[in-house]
């Protein structure tokens, strides 16, 4: 049996039955990383010693009757912008090659307390924005479905590690789509929870009011289990919301009969980059949901371009504020793409930013209104499959085939779910959006899509 294909819940059952040990799970995962990562570059650091120590402790605790819950003994990895006590946290940048935090980020601490087994730190676009780049201290992660293709970013190593079957769950961050983009292009599930649902403390910021953190995983259930551990109030994170945490698995198998689902079709139907097979993919998903009893209908939202520019102005202004001093004195130490993008933040005026914040209010109200008539929204995460590394692109352009920024601007929970493979063998998927703090509905619809699409029977790359 290949333990790399066991779900988190299945691993948990076997650990408790004594039919597998956490050390075996960790060793199998480490062996797969050792076999594949020389070519795929998911990890910037493998913490083997720590992993085996964590795993042995997890085994000892289970034997002595201490059970920390569903992540007890489960291997996972962290994007290298999460502070980890005593473990280098570089943000994939030469500016931080020697930074070793003294404390864990809140998310890392919660995963550790839940008994998770940390395998290492994952590659990212530099400071969660600049990439994929070849002028950084570590190579860019590659797409396991075809290593000549990009993963999407910025949680690039997170997407690679799951699609390559190294781990079932890896943490990412999402400021404009950095969880959902790699999830879409690597064929994984990726959820950006509601703004304020998960503490961001100890995760290096890109843009405070757009940053969200959450998991990428092999399945919707894996993500629900992980969010259960992460969600909850943190008084020291000023954006953290003091809202009760529901049971994220309770509604997973309820299906979609009777639900109303809206499709903001103009978002993607009028975009030049949308391919016919991706368009056919979302129409197929809509038909499957209708056949399962949902009412699925097209809706109108404000122009996608307004969501996009409002988000980009806010992100550029906040990112520049964070990096201002280093941009003035150490600009050439950044990768060229990162520096070029951050520089644009210096060109955003006060009036630009205030107008973007006025747009944010309008756009959030519009999405809330749509969700007052619908239980969830269905749209695309990406307009096309992952491009090749050598495909000519304007790396500083605002145009992106990833359509995820709207829900960073509005703070609604949004999840990318794979639905199939394109003609080139690369994954395609859809994005599901819910009301603020209604992640249970996002998981419920996502689980239905996962089942109806047949994705669970798709064979992942075997390296």
């Amino acid at each position: 049996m290949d333990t790399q294909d066991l779900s988190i819940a299945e691993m948990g059952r076997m650990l408790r039955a004594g039919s597998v040990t956490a050390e075996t799970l960790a060793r199998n995962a480490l062996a797969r990383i050792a076999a594949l990562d020389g070519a795929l570059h998911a990890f910037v650091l493998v913490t083997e010693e720590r992993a085996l120590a964590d795993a042995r402790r997890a085994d000892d605790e289970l034997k002595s009757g201490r059970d920390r819950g569903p992540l007890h003994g489960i291997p996972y990895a962290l994007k290298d912008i999460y502070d980890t006590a005593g473990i280098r946290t570089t943000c994939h940048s030469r500016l931080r090659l020697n930074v070793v935090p003294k404390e864990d980020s809140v998310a890392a601490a919660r995963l550790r307390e839940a008994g998770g087994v940390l395998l290492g730190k994952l590659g990212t676009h530099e400071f969660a924005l600049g990439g994929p780049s070849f002028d950084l201290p570590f190579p860019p992660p590659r797409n396991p479905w075809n290593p000549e293709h990009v993963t999407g970013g910025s949680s690039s190593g997170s997407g690679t590690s799951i699609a390559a079957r190294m781990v079932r769950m890896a943490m990412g961050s999402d400021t404009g789509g950095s969880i959902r983009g790699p999830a879409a292009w690597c064929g994984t599930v990726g959820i950006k929870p509601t703004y304020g649902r998960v503490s961001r403390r100890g995760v290096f910021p890109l843009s405070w009011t757009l940053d969200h953190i959450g998991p990428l995983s092999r399945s919707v259930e894996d993500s629900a289990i992980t969010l259960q551990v992460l969600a909850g109030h943190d008084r020291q994170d000023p954006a953290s919301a003091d809202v009760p945490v529901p049971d994220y698995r309770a509604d997973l198998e309820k299906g979609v009969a009777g639900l109303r689902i809206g499709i903001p079709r103009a978002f993607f139907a009028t975009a030049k980059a949308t391919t016919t097979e991706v368009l056919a993919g979302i129409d197929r998903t809509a038909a499957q949901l209708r056949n399962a009893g949902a009412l699925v209908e097209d809706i109108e939202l404000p122009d996608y371009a307004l969501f996009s520019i409002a988000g980009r102005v806010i992100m550029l202004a906040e990112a520049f504020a964070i990096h201002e001093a280093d941009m003035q004195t150490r600009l050439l130490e950044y990768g060229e793409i990162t520096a070029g993008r951050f520089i644009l933040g210096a060109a955003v005026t006060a009036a630009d930013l205030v107008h973007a914040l006025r747009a944010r209010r309008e756009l959030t109200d519009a999405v809330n209104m749509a969700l007052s008539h619908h239980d969830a929204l269905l749209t695309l995460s990406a307009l096309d499959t992952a491009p090749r590394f050598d495909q000519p692109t304007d790396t500083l352009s605002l145009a992106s085939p990833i359509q995820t920024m709207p829900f960073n601007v509005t703070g609604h929970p949004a999840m990318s779910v794979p639905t199939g493979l394109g003609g080139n063998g690369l994954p395609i998927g859809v994005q599901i959006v819910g009301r603020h703090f209604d992640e249970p509905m996002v998981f419920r619809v996502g689980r239905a899509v996962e089942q109806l699409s047949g994705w669970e029977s798709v064979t992942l790359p075997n390296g």
Partner: protein
Amino acid sequence: MVETLSSDALAAEFDCLMARAGITVPPQRRPSILAAYADLRGQIALLHGRYGPEAEPSNVFRAEPAGGR
């Protein structure tokens, strides 16, 4: 609406903003960043002139009484 600038004026504006921010743009990178700046300004024009004075930004907040939670 924001006035449309000539390419020379846009370049001068960009140089002025960089100088004000204390950023030294490497000369070989300036053309691509300037092109991205022109694209950005074109997109930002969507935001200007859209709202009347009653449209407040999203960060206007509501104060709660002490111990109000």
